[in-house]
């Protein structure tokens, strides 16, 4: 390239505008779903007895909309805007940009249709079924090609710190998504993951944690490094710090996944590894927060009068508190109290609403007037939006931490006779119900704050001069290419592709070490403890359990703690879930653990409980599932499912595989007969409730030889 060449460039701002508008629309959808979900927990009637919007299906819709639609489109808008300017080059291909945009929106629509219909893989933030997984991978590659080709034709040799974060994001998300989505299709919208039980749990949380790290953190830090200095018109506080904390983050983040699995059947060494790296993450995370906040040093006058700066300060403060709380929650003793409770829900919302939500609103309040070449419609509305949203987030966080600690302490309370103080799980639920109403109010406040910003931006766009909204040509100078790279790091930054490769290697180093050993699970499964796989009818029931999103509120993983053993039975082992494709360990106990619920109650109990939980437990907040007694169970794909499971190593004999559907229907007739004999309704043998009961009764009942006297509890 020529030295000091001057060119005129027109940046592609049309694509940025497109991503901006959809972010605002999807944001409303995500927050509305969240609000409805909050109402459902406060009062079960908001489930409306409609299968498509029961909490188990709505919660994945809410999380996917918030992460991939709201945060995702924010990231793309910000990256397309800042990358072109930082690299002094128009995006490589307008066509690829458009494919990326429309492809991503189609994926979101596909998610919004399939999740309410119950098509799910039940892996959190990776629920979407295999055809959509393939689409995500394809569109992500389109984005990557577009981005890296722009990098190649850039006129600015030095890669600004924001660009590094984008590179790490694009590369890591691709790796994470692909590894966690290795699944074998059964039908057009059903598949089994190749991993099972403990391996599946580790891969999922390696993904799940890094979805937070590389979808909600690194891209937003990249955006922060662009938009905060721009909005404040001040350089980053310390470029050196940005270099250090970038490297530290990409090295450390990838190791922290197992902190989601503390005290589970995951081998102890992996848990400890995850805990240590999580605590280490505190430092580089705060590097980013300090750098962002200190950039505003001396601009505190701006803080008072500029709402954009307010949003950024709010976002960075929540980033700081969340990344302090994260390592804290990763310490085993803290996790023992907080895990499975609302404390975690509070933690993620402080991050998602506080950090991602406020970053997003700040960015768009700054960006929309620029893109449409006009002034912000109302500074006052932006102020109102900020304070409303902030109040909402603080209320949300405090109510959920209070709820989590309260329920955690009640669940673990043991009296001097060594008995549970609150043996009935429901007591702990009714205690925290008032806090669920506080959360509804908090969610409503945040949503209102967001709507005010959406209205403000809508009016801003409306007031834009019609003629002047086209992107203007910009004169740019090619810089950096003539000088001999003087430092090693400059050399590194100049070679974009090399940099990318090194980032990949850095991430793979972490991943390979962590995941590889668990691939050969037999090392940990003790032969004498190997469990029996599920029967054909139980597999049908398991699919219904997954479809209804039972795992959203019920864990299947008993931790080795006195209260859990008293309440649920002996701690879960690796062997308990070794044939589970996918694993169902869960992450939140809105209801009790189900790992050993099998044979605890008679079939009739389950029949009544699923139709109307309040018939058994009057204060229950669980949705009713009346359609399970109305719909016929589907056995048509069962043989195929069994052949896939057998291929994946589940020890079924050929006879079972070949006759899976016939065996299942025979089992169903048996259970229907028992229910009829017990005084229940007739003619249930074809209904979905039968396999569901079969599966629930099988949980924890698969040990080959009868386990030693189990201390059952929870009378």
């Amino acid at each position, binding site marked *: 390239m020529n030295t000091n060449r001057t060119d005129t460039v027109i*940046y592609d701002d049309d694509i940025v505008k497109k991503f901006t508008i959809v972010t605002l629309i999807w944001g409303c959808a995500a927050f509305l779903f969240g609000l409805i979900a909050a109402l459902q927990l406060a009062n079960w009637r908001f489930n409306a007895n409609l299968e498509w919007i029961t909490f188990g299906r709505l919660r994945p819709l809410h999380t996917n909309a918030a992460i991939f639609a709201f945060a995702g489109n924010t990231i793309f808008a910000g990256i397309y805007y800042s990358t072109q*300017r*930082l690299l*002094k080059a128009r995006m490589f291909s307008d066509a690829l940009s458009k494919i990326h945009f429309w492809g991503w929106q189609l994926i979101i629509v596909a998610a919004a249709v399939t999740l309410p219909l119950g098509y799910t893989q039940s892996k959190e933030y990776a629920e979407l079924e295999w055809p959509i997984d393939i689409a995500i991978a394809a569109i992500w590659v389109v984005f990557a090609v577009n981005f890296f080709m722009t990098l190649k034709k850039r006129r*600015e040799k*030095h890669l*600004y*710190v924001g660009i590094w974060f984008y590179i790490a994001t694009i590369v890591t998300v691709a790796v994470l998504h692909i590894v966690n989505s290795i699944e074998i299709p059964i039908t057009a919208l059903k598949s089994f993951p190749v991993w099972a039980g403990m391996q599946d749990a580790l891969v999922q949380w390696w993904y799940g944690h890094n979805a937070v790290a590389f979808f909600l953190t690194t891209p937003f830090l990249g955006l922060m490094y*662009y938009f905060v*200095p*721009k909005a404040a*018109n*001040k*350089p*980053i506080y*310390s*470029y*050196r710090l940005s*270099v250090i904390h970038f*490297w530290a983050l990409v*090295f450390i983040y990838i190791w922290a996944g197992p902190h989601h699995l503390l005290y589970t059947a995951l081998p102890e060494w992996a848990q400890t590894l995850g805990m240590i790296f999580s605590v280490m993450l505190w430092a580089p995370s705060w590097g980013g927060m300090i750098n962002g906040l200190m950039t505003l040093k001396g601009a505190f006058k701006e803080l008072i009068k500029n709402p954009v700066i307010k949003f950024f300060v709010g976002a960075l403060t929540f980033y700081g508190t969340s990344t302090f709380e994260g390592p804290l929650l990763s310490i085993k003793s803290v996790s023992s109290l907080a895990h499975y409770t609302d404390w975690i829900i509070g933690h993620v919302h402080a991050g998602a609403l506080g950090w991602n939500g406020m970053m997003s609103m700040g960015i768009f309040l700054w960006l929309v007037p620029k893109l449409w*070449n006009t002034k912000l419609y109302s500074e006052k509305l932006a102020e109102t939006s900020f304070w409303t949203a902030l109040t909402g987030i603080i209320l949300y966080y405090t109510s959920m931490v209070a709820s989590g600690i309260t329920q955690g302490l009640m669940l673990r309370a043991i009296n001097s006779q060594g008995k549970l103080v609150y043996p009935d799980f429901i007591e702990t639920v009714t205690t925290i119900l008032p806090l669920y109403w506080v959360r509804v109010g908090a969610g409503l406040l945040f949503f209102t704050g967001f709507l005010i910003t959406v209205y403000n931006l809508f009016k801003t766009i409306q007031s834009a001069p019609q003629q002047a909204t086209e992107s*203007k*040509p*910009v*004169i*740019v*100078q090619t*810089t950096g290419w003539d000088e001999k790279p*003087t*430092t*090693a*790091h*400059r050399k590194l930054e100049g070679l974009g592709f090399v940099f990318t490769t*090194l980032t990949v*290697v*850095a991430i793979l*180093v*972490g991943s*390979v*070490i962590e995941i*590889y*050993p668990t691939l*050969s699970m037999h*090392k940990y499964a003790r032969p004498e403890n190997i469990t029996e796989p599920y029967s054909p009818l139980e597999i049908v029931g398991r699919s219904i359990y997954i479809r209804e999103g039972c795992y959203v509120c019920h864990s299947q993983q008993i931790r080795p703690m006195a209260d859990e053993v008293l309440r649920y039975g002996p701690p879960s082992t690796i062997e308990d879930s070794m044939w589970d494709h996918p694993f169902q360990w869960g992450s939140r106990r809105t209801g009790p653990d189900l790992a050993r619920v099998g044979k605890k109650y008679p079939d009739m109990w389950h029949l009544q409980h699923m139709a109307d939980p309040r018939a058994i437990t009057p204060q229950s907040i669980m949705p009713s599932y009346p359609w399970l007694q109305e719909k016929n169970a589907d056995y048509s794909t069962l043989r195929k499912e069994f052949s896939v499971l057998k291929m994946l190593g589940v020890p079924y004999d050929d006879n079972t595989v070949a006759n899976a559907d016939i065996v299942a229907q025979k089992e169903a007739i048996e259970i229907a007969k028992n229910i009829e004999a017990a005084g229940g309704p007739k003619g249930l043998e074809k209904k979905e409730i039968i396999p569901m009961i079969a599966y629930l009764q099988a949980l924890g009942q698969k040990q080959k030889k009868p386990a030693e006297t189990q201390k059952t509890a929870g009378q």
Partner: protein
Amino acid sequence: MNILILIIPMALLLGAGFLYAFFWATSNGQFDDLSTPSLRMLDQDSKHNKNDTKENIL
């Protein structure tokens, strides 16, 4: 499992390599120019056509 014997030392070696490169670069003053990039990004898109006023370039 035997592959671990190869993979873990290799991985650690790579990680150590990155760390070494980073410290070597720092102690050799490789990050001397850590001030201009943060300043340069601020005026990167301010070179609009000459008839632009100061207000709409900031």
